[in-house]
């Protein structure tokens, strides 16, 4: 089974995507499954490091938190852009030491950081595990570091184990 379908999550995701893009019918289910399985083999040829998800229950919690944070920071950044030139906004770089090492977990963190207006992922040093961020409104350095490390990284460590 694992040789036929090396990446079950990827295959399920691709079948779902195929069905959403076409129509839900038996023919499309079979065709989509066939294509997804072949795509799974192609992925296997690339030999990426397989993510091992430990705690599924933490995923919806993290998604909810991230959606709320994105909404909040959208409002904050929109306000800052409108008042640009008047307020005393100070942006700057911030170094955050990370304990996360798994490439997939880091990729998820990069998506979170990029999707949230106000923080931009600039550089990650794989040797030291230090992430360099650029923060749009850097009033409270410890607060931002705490946000990344405790709000996102801790939950990602929980999920990816």
């Amino acid at each position, binding site marked *: 089974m694992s040789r036929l379908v090396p990446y079950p999550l990827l295959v399920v995701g691709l079948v779902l995507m195929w069905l959403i*893009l076409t129509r839900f019918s038996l023919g499309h289910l079979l065709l989509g499954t066939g294509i997804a399985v072949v795509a799974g083999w192609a992925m296997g040829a690339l030999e990426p490091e397989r993510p091992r998800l430990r705690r599924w229950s933490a995923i919806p919690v993290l998604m909810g938190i991230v959606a709320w944070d994105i909404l909040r920071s959208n409002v904050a950044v929109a306000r800052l852009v409108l008042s640009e030139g008047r307020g005393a906004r100070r942006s700057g*770089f911030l170094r955050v030491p990370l304990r996360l090492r798994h490439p997939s977990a880091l990729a998820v963190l990069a998506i979170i950081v990029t999707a949230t207006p106000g923080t*931009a992922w600039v550089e990650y040093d794989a040797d030291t595990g230090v992430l360099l961020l*650029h923060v749009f409104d850097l009033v409270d350095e410890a607060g931002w570091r705490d946000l990344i490390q405790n709000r996102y990284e801790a939950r990602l460590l929980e999920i990816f184990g």
Partner: protein
Amino acid sequence: MSHLDAVPLWAAIPAALLILLGSGLTLLGALGLARLRSFYDRLHAPALATSWGTLSLVLASVILFSTLEQRPVVHDLLIGFFVMVTTPVTMMLLGRAALHRDRAERSAAVPPASLAEPEEPSRR
């Protein structure tokens, strides 16, 4: 515009509000891109358009076409998903390229590359 007459009011109002919100956020993102001064500041502005800007436009499209076609039309959500997943690639590329150039020009505004001694920037 004639086919839009078939949209009932209860679907048209939330869809219109979402479209206004999404296009407003996208406009603000573009405004920020034009008005902000430093390159790194400008990295943040488009995130308004790629996060909730895209999401509200996609949601409006889902509401409109689901009511028009009398079946759930959800394939638009894939656009939102892929925009969210792929923007980090461009952002990192731009950010790192700018950082590399600034470091090569020995700009004082960016942190040094050596992380071992952050207190002692090299003075060559």
